[in-house]
């Protein structure tokens, strides 16, 4: 069992938990992920590591409940435990293996969207510890959904933009990036984008035009997270890659986002049914009128 030492809400629907997992905390690096399973019947949920403390032996995860298992996970409080918590999985961010002198010469921009803001944090924090202050754009739909502003402010130059303009800048993250480059005299030679696939797709479209090499962190459907099932396969250039062992970070210019987004819908029907069953109890959710599930 893996004890939850701290649990809080970062916004209306985004949860943060600090979990006791010494073996993961001892070996993890920014960019890697864990898989958590809250209870016996639960699904294995892959989550990018959002912070770690090697001395205390803790891992911080941030997630948004969307399916049955994550909704149940969100109900856990400090003092409760995850039944399973395994990692670190995937490869660390390439930044970790780049010599610090080389990194210092680079102008790096991080672009974070929604719940994807959280996994950007360990990378930005890591750079800050090495004496490098990166620019970071956080994008959210509206003011209440902006998360971790305080933590980020301490480790980077922060730009916040909301779709509805309810907080700081108005518009998508791509608008903000364009403004920084076109109107505010900024230039970048490395970009890391983490957020919804649709956001990463449009960021890459723009950074391609500006010729800024861009790394994206992919979060496709997974089961085991060790390369065994192949559910997380992605088309990257002319190769098929497994996000769990070859990623989760890839060259954004090479990722086929349209295919990846289609693959994300694979279990929508089954998950929708399970969610309805959770919300409404054992009523009929087959939708066919024939299976007898409503009797």
């Amino acid at each position, binding site marked *: 069992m893996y004890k939850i030492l701290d649990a809080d809400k970062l916004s209306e629907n985004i949860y943060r938990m600090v979990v006791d997992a010494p*073996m*993961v905390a001892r*070996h993890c690096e920014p960019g890697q992920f864990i898989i958590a*399973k809250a209870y016996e*019947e*639960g*699904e*294995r949920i892959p989550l990018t590591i959002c912070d770690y403390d090697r001395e205390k032996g803790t891992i911080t995860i941030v997630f948004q409940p969307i*399916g*049955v*298992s994550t909704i*149940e996970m969100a109900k856990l409080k400090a003092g409760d435990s995850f*039944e*399973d*918590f*395994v*990692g*670190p*999985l995937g490869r660390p961010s390439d930044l970790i293996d780049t010599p610090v002198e080389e990194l210092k010469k680079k102008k790096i921009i991080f672009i974070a969207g929604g719940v994807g803001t959280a996994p950007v944090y360990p990378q930005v924090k890591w750079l800050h510890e090495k004496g490098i202050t990166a620019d970071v754009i956080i994008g959210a739909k509206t003011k209440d959904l902006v998360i971790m502003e305080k933590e980020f402010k301490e480790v980077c130059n922060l730009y916040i933009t909301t779709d509805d303009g309810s907080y700081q800048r108005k518009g998508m993250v791509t608008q903000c990036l364009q403004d920084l480059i076109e109107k505010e005299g900024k230039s970048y030679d490395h970009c890391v984008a983490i957020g919804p696939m649709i956001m990463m797709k449009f960021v890459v479209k723009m950074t391609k035009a500006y010729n800024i090499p861009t790394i994206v962190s992919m979060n496709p459907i997974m*089961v*085991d997270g*060790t*390369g*065994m*099932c*192949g*559910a997380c*396969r*992605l*088309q990257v250039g002319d190769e*098929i890659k*497994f996000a769990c*062992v070859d990623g989760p970070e890839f060259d954004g210019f090479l990722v086929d986002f349209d*295919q990846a987004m*289609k*693959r994300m*819908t*694979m*279990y929508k*029907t*089954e*998950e929708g049914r*399970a969610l309805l069953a959770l919300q409404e109890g054992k009523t009929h959710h087959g939708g066919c009128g024939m299976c007898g599930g409503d009797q």
Partner: protein
Amino acid sequence: MAADPKMLVKVPVREQDPKVRATNFDEVCYGYNAEEAVEESERCLHCKNAKCIQGCPVSINIPEFIAAIRKKDFKEAYNVISESSALPAVCGRVCPQESQCEGQCIRGIKGEPVSIGKLERFTADWAREQGIRPDPAKEKNGHKVAVIGAGPSGLTCAGDLARLGYDVTIFEALHKAGGVLSYGIPEFRLPKSAVVDQEVENVKNLGVRIETNVIIGKSITVDELLTEEGFEAVFIGSGAGLPMFMHIPGENANGVFSANEFLTRNNLMKAYREDYDTPIHCGKKVAVVGGGNVAMDAARTALRLGAEVHIIYRRSEEELPARKEEVHHAKEEGIQFDLLCNPVEIHVDENGWVKGIRCIRMELGEPDASGRRRPVPVEGSEFDMDVDTVIMSLGTSPNPLISSTTIGLDINKRKCIIANEEDGQTSKTGVFAGGDAVTGAATVILAMGAGKAAAKGIDSFIRSKGN
């Protein structure tokens, strides 16, 4: 002397009716009861130079346990088997007996061999029902050994070492022990809580600790186990690895799965049960590509989830690598075999889902390196099949997680770990390996044989250090 005609055939085993079992996940084969087992045991000739023992990768003293069954001393039969095998209830169900013990049986020259597998299963099931477990070692020797992977090879190696008095810890990457027995082989062939979990408990009962959720190479490395954690030797039994795909157009479409994914969702995550959260997608018409045991398992699982299922295999029936019993059961249940054909493309609809598969007919040419006749495409023979799900069951390639993070561990061209067959020794001192991580995808019993050999190898390695 004329043989009694009754002695020429096996005592038939009771099975669930094919029509009924095609709609449930309960075990297909009921196995022998005591009376049937005793009757079958009378067919054994008790050969002096027993060929069946040579055919068994873990060298169970087969005539001796069968003789005990004949005397109705089932406990003694269990003790004889337990000397050689930690997982008899599993092996009695999933071993390819026809090419091992039963393949060597003298009875089989004229008529059918003795039903050794079913007798082994009976003995193990009887012991479980009586609550009989193998005895732990009387004395611990104080030496620590780490075993990577709680599958057939790891459980066997750990069990044998524990019996010799070693302090053994198994590290398992998944949240559940059993390896392929838990994630791969379906419930209807190998019941999980009744059989697999019980045999894992038996191994634990020998004093073996199992730590789940530890990925060697990620959570901790082999070198750290040896230098920082105080383990004197490590056995790598990490299993088969990454699923292979065909690299044909449309393979990333929604509705194309590896057999590993499909089976893991169903078996480990229990997606077929309403009370488990993990989803599984199985369409109305499924093509399973491949002809091995895993392909049969995937096909029969899809059938039970309500689909019409076709096996697509590029060679002919004779070359099907699956156990005969699995092919026979699959056919009985209504799986359709499309032999001598091979997929060339998967058709995808505008939403990214599978809508069909294009295949080409094959014919058999000259034998290849494997000794099997090589399938050759028949030019211009392409045809389309309407399917909405495709399950690729083409084998696996080894997972580089351990080999790439262990200093001085050599692998071969196929990326399998190089290890001696007789004692499991690898290129790295103190590190042994066996099972699919060494051989590539093979059988449960061969992995167990390798685990057994490595346990001996580890024991003599630690003894030779003179402490």
